[in-house]
């Protein structure tokens, strides 16, 4: 199995690792970097649980290879909160509006919601539903997720302890 050295920025930190060609970005983040906040639900690019930001855009880390992101900047759920202890507006909103239950789809949902709000700071409920359609949640029925994104839009700029 061929291996390659890759250098990339993950949550603001530059790291260099040697990886086999076939290692997915998701496995790389979870097993090689130890960031287990990125979850795997289907490993065929449908459920969206593994969504991370690649140079600012949401992507499925289960259907990308680690070698494809050499030189890129990746943000995972652990990178959404400054220092990993305070809550970003989107994280705070999901807690406030109970936009989660089991927490498994949540990291991907938070990444997708954060990306959405960067593009559209005040989305309508319909726009939120359109943009989050690629992330499956089995627990919530989505309503409190939509409300979370709306709440985040209304409270952006606040960082909660």
């Amino acid at each position: 199995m061929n291996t390659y050295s890759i250098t990339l920025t993950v949550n603001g930190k530059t790291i260099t690792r040697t990886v086999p060609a076939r290692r997915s970005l998701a496995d790389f983040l979870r097993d090689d970097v130890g960031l287990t906040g990125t979850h795997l639900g289907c490993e065929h690019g449908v459920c969206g649980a593994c969504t991370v930001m690649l140079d600012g855009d949401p992507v499925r880390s289960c259907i990308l290879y680690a070698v494809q992101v050499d030189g890129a900047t990746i943000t995972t759920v652990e990178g959404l909160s400054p220092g990993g202890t305070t809550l970003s507006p989107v994280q705070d909103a999901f807690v406030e509006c109970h936009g989660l239950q089991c927490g498994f789809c949540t990291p991907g949902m938070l990444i997708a919601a954060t990306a959405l709000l960067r593009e559209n700071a005040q989305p309508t409920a319909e726009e939120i539903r359109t943009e989050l359609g690629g992330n499956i949640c089995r627990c919530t029925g989505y309503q409190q997720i939509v409300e979370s994104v709306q709440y985040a839009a209304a409270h952006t700029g606040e960082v909660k302890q």
Partner: protein
Amino acid sequence: MIADAPVKAHRYIGKKRRPVESRRFVLGRGRFAADVTMPHAHHIAIVSSPHAHARIVSVDVTPALAVDGVLGIIDGATLRGETNPLRQYLDVPGVEWFPLAGDVTRYAGEWVVAIVATERAIAEDAAELVNIVYEPLPAVLDPEAAMDERSPAVHPSHPSNVMYRRTFTWGPVDDDFAQSPHILKARYRWHRNSTVPIETFSVIASWDPSMALLDVWASIQMPQFPEQLAAALDIPLNGVRVHFDVDVGGSYGVKRGIKHAVLAAFASRRFCVPVKFVEDRLENMRGGDMHGPDRIFDIEMAYDDRGVVRSMRMRTIDDEGAYPGRSPLQMGKPVGSIVGAYRIASVQYEAIAVTTNKTGQVAVRGFGQAPTNFAIELSMDRIARAVGIAPVEVRRRNFIQAHEFPYTIPSGTAYDSGNYPTVMTKAEDVADIEALYRWRDAARQEGRAVGIGIASCIEPGGGNAIFEALFNSKNTTTTFPEGCQIKIDRTGAISAQIGVASSGQGHETLVSTVLGEEFGIPPDEIRVIHADSLAGLPSQSPVASRMAIVLGDATVGAARRLKAKMVQIAAHDLGVQADACVWNGTAVQAPDGREVPWAEIVRIALMQYHRLPPGLDPGLQAQFVLEVQGGGVLPAADGTVQMYPCQSFSAHVVAIEIDRGTGQVAFHKYVVAHDCGTVINPDIVRGMVMGGIAHGIGAALYERFVYDESGQLITQTFADYLMPSTHEVPHVEMVEHETPSPMTTMGQKGVGEGGYMSTPAAVVCAINDALAPFGASVSHAPVTPVDLLELVR
């Protein structure tokens, strides 16, 4: 049982509170079983059967064993030689279920060989090199065909493919039918779906030979899981330690990976390394034994000119797949709400469990009541149509009335409380049903296929799993306990311990809210931990919408025991009788007004033994193990029994449109009115209802495990087994109603399953209303665009 009067004025119960679990989840710090790592852990990959039914002629693992990184390979013969069969809840001699197939594979996807390697990818490489020779056998896939004695036997050592068959008769059914002017006869088909959590089943097992101890972390939601592990591996129960401090990524019933865990534990013991098995999606969908009920209903209802139903005959055939396990009991729980919300005076109920060459079923949200309610509600609609009254009206004429509680249904369960007509009215009001009808009629004038659906639903909660004994007289278990242990430390801080893992229900929030209420302390200051199975108290696990009811009251019980001890300590310190003192919320008060505050009682109890009442044990800790309320009684000879203690209720009003060009169903309006008694956390209750509705929309319109004629599962990825997304789930308007339960200390009931139990009925009733002008109807779920396109053209 619990001395104090019910809490009346609530400080924390029912108030907005951020669930405590959420913070770790949004920070990406949840700890799921797949996140648990151990040094030297190895990984499992599976070789599955490509045949629905075949004799295994030979297994050659030599090339696979030679792959660098492969530690070992386990085949069925090896595993079966050193483990006991997995548990069957029915009395079915000759039916043996193991994690790996033996001489015969009984469904496509069944696990045949397990590879253990340093990495999952290496194990998968090796799996491709395993050479298995099969001799295909005839398969049986249709449950009714399977009942025919000439059909292929799934388990030839059992007399037939029928695993269970019993007819219950409650009341004068034949007389009631004879005296009724009208009889509805209908057949319904509930196709196979499941809860399909986004997290697949994951387990890591580590056998320590020096301590003869098996440690297991698993994404588990299962009664008697440690017991079944110990039995399968033939080790003492105190040699199994299941760690419940893992977060479970959704379950809704199905996270019961006993075969996964036995396989991983066996591999760990055999190769002396920790072994991890994280199912991939394909293994989960086709071979995880985690499908749900798959039923045919034949219904007869005897009713009068007004649409009032007097009696019902229900026959259900359930396709269990190859290994029945616990799944046939899902025809047992509906016995506890067999008449739904209606005053049906007599019932005949025939339950038939059949094996076929498909992957097994397991407990799915509602434990069988979703399909049963589907059959009842579709029948109500047909009666309304036959009599010429509105769907709401036929339900009103049959509802159990508010003054009739406790109301004992023919099968023996007393419903605790409710006000069904009022809740239905709330749903109609919020939906503005008259305006909806006007919308419908106007749309129909334009030639559009639109319809309005109504459904009601009883949601039993509490998890008195007495259906185990009902379906197997050799099983005399009547104890379905839940325990809570609490402790106050030297600083006065409270911690509580529960003996279960959670899969999104918010049990830490539940227990800390209840303790906050009992002790008058902010719930956020209370720590709740998940004990392991050796340290924890008895638990039946968080099934059957039972935790608010049973864990909630166990928590109250433990708190009140501890408060009694605190009063005893304070009274002794004041030199007065304990029964003369009262707990005023912050201190224990004597009749003369003197007080011993919280901090002082803590100091005495933990640090000043000389001030304790003589003989009293030091410290502030208490346990309470609660038997499910109203339980503890075996079924009578006729099968009547008190099933669950609490009955929640919901009413749904749904308006849909069928696209006449595509057959696609779109929602115009969705309203639910909901009554689960006293609400403990409003956001959690709302989330449970909304999530259940979304799941029910999947069952109504999208989700189905489809097998082709050769027994291959053809919906085995998320690209073809369709889970509802934000595009398919509409905005739902919800209105609450609170009828407290007299069975619980706070009046609380269960809430986890009702949405899934009632939504499929409501949606399909709406579809049938839309189809009525076309002279058509459907009687199955899911109803797909292909089904509808022909009917609305």
